[in-house]
C-alpha cells in the first residue's frame, strides 16, 4: 500500500493573486486575471489578451539573496521560486536550513527555459560578444534552472527533478513527488510547476489558431471554457507549488494538513485512436482517470468536484464526454465541474499546479469556484451532464474528494485524486 501522503503547504503566483490569501479571495469572488496586452496588438497577434501575474522583481527580495537576485532575468524561474518558497513557509518551515535536508526533494516542472534569457544569449553570440554573457546565463537557460534555484535555497538533498509534459506537467510533477513519498524514497517533496509565456511561445500558439481572438476588447470575457462562444484558449503565466509529506513525518512535526493526496495516474494514449501530437485520445484519458480512482481506493461516486483541464477549445466537449465515461456518471448525477482557466487562462506547464492549489483550497474551504463566462454552455455538454453541475457563481458545498486532471501535447494525461484528511484509515 505504501505511505500516506498529505499536503502541508501551498504557494501560488497567479494572474489573479500573488499569494494564497489573495488567490483564495480571487477564486471565491470570480476575479479574472486576464488583461489586454498592447504589445500583442503591435505584434499583430490574433489573440491580444493574456493572464499575467502582477509580479515585480522586488517581490523576490526576501526570498533569495541580493547577489542571486542580481542577474536573475528568467521570469518563469522567478515565479517558481516565489511559489515554492511560499509553500515551504506555509508548511511552517524556515527558508534557510543549516545543513542539507536529505529526506526532502523537489519535482518542479516547466515547458521551455526562459526565452528572454535565451534571446539575450542569441543576440550577444551572433554579435560576436559571447564574452559579455557572464556567469548567469547557463543556469537560467537550462530546463532545470527552476529546481536548481529552489533546491539550492532550501538546501534540499533528496531527488531534484525538472519534469516536462506540456500541459500535463504540473499534475505530473505532483504525482511524481507523491510516488517518491508513498514508496518510501523521500519524506517530503516540494512539487509544482512554472510557466512564463513570452511573445515567442505565445506567437507559436497564435499561429496554430487555437487562441481566443474575439474578445480582445473585453479581456475578462476572453477565456470561456465549455462555452459555445468560446473560440480558443487564453495563454497565461504563473506558478503553483505544494509541499507533500509522509503522513507520519507531518504528524511528528505537528504540521497543519490541508488534505490527503490519495493517488493518481499519468499515462499517454500513444497518439493512437483519436490521440495525436495535439489532441488527447479518449481511451488514454479514460484509462488515466480510472487508474487514478483505482490507485486511490475510492469509488467514482465519491468524487464531489471535477477540476477539469477545459481550456476553452473544441476539445472541451470531448473532455466532458471522457469524464462521463470514466466516472460512469451523467446527468445530475455527474459531479460539479469547473475550470480555473475561465479566470486566469491556460498557463501551460503551470496550469496543473495552480489548478491543484485551487482544488485544495476548495476542498479545505468547502466551495466550488464559479466558471466565468459560461453564459452559453455547449449544447452537447448539457446533453450529458446537468446544468446545475456547471456553476456560474460560487457554490458553498461540502467537498470531500476532488479529481484534478490535465491533458497535454504529446497525448500525455495526468490525474490526481485529493481528499480531506481523515485520521481513521480510509
Amino acid at each position, binding site marked *: 500500500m505504501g505511505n500516506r501522503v498529505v499536503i502541508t503547504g501551498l504557494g501560488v503566483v497567479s494572474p489573479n493573486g500573488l499569494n494564497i490569501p489573495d488567490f483564495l479571495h480571487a477564486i471565491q469572488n470570480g476575479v479574472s486575471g486576464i488583461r489586454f496586452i498592447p504589445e500583442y496588438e503591435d505584434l499583430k497577434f490574433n489573440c491580444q489578451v493574456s493572464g499575467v501575474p502582477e509580479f515585480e522583481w522586488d517581490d523576490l527580495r526576501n526570498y533569495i539573496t541580493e*547577489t542571486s537576485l542580481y*542577474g536573475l532575468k528568467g521570469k518563469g524561474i522567478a515565479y517558481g521560486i516565489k511559489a515554492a518558497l511560499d509553500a515551504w513557509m506555509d508548511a511552517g518551515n524556515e527558508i534557510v536550513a543549516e545543513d542539507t535536508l536529505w529526506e526532502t526533494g523537489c519535482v518542479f516542472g516547466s515547458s521551455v527555459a526562459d526565452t528572454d534569457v535565451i534571446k539575450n544569449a542569441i543576440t550577444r553570440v551572433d554579435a560576436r560578444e559571447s564574452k559579455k554573457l557572464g*556567469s548567469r546565463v547557463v543556469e537560467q537557460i537550462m530546463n532545470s534552472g527552476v529546481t536548481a534555484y529552489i533546491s539550492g535555497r532550501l538546501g534540499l538533498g533528496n531527488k531534484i527533478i525538472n519534469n516536462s509534459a506540456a500541459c500535463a506537467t504540473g499534475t505530473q510533477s505532483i504525482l511524481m513527488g507523491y510516488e517518491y513519498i508513498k514508496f518510501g524514497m523521500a519524506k517530503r517533496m516540494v512539487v509544482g510547476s512554472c510557466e512564463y509565456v513570452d511573445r515567442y511561445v505565445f506567437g507559436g500558439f497564435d499561429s496554430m489558431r487555437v487562441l481566443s481572438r474575439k474578445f480582445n476588447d473585453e479581456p475578462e470575457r476572453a477565456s470561456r471554457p465549455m462555452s459555445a462562444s468560446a473560440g480558443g484558449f487564453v495563454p497565461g503565466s504563473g506558478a503553483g507549488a505544494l509541499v507533500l509529506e509522509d503522513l507520519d513525518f507531518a504528524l511528528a512535526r505537528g504540521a497543519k494538513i490541508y488534505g490527503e493526496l490519495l493517488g493518481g495516474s499519468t499515462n499517454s494514449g500513444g497518439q493512437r485512436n483519436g490521440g495525436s501530437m495535439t489532441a488527447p485520445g479518449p481511451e488514454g484519458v479514460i484509462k488515466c482517470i480510472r487508474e487514478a480512482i483505482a490507485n486511490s481506493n475510492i469509488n467514482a461516486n465519491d468524487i464531489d468536484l471535477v477540476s477539469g483541464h477545459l481550456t476553452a477549445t473544441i476539445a472541451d466537449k470531448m473532455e466532458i464526454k471522457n469524464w462521463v465515461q470514466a466516472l460512469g456518471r451523467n446527468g445530475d448525477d455527474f459531479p460539479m465541474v469547473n475550470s480555473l482557466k475561465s479566470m486566469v487562462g491556460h498557463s501551460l506547464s503551470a496550469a496543473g499546479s495552480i489548478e491543484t492549489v485551487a482544488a485544495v483550497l476548495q476542498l479545505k474551504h468547502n466551495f466550488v469556484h464559479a466558471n466565468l463566462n459560461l453564459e452559453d454552455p455547449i449544447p452537447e455538454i448539457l446533453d450529458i451532464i446537468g446544468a446545475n453541475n456547471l456553476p456560474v457563481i460560487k457554490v458553498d458545498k461540502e467537498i470531500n474528494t476532488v479529481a484534478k486532471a490535465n491533458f497535454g501535447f504529446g497525448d500525455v494525461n495526468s490525474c490526481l485524486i485529493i481528499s480531506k484528511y481523515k485520521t481513521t484509515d480510509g
Partner: protein
Amino acid sequence: MDRKEILTELKKVLAPYTESKEMLDGINEDTDLIKDLKINSANLVDIIIDAEAQYNIEIDFDAAEKMYNVGNCIDVISEKINKLA
C-alpha cells in the same frame, strides 16, 4: 586615475556580487574576493565583464587570472588604463 580612485570605483563594481556589505565598506588592497567578500567564484567573470565596461578596457584571460584580491585587481586595471593613455 590613481589607485585610491580605482579602489573607490571598484567597490561599486563588486557591490552586486557580495552579501558582505560591511566587509565591502572596509576593503583594502589585501582583501580577498572569494575568502573575505565571499564572492562566488563563478561570479568573477561577471566582475571582469563589469570592470571592462566601467573602465572601458579589455581584460584578457591571463590578466583575469591574477584578479583574486583587491590589490591585484587594481594592478590589472591601472595597467590597462595606463596603456590606453
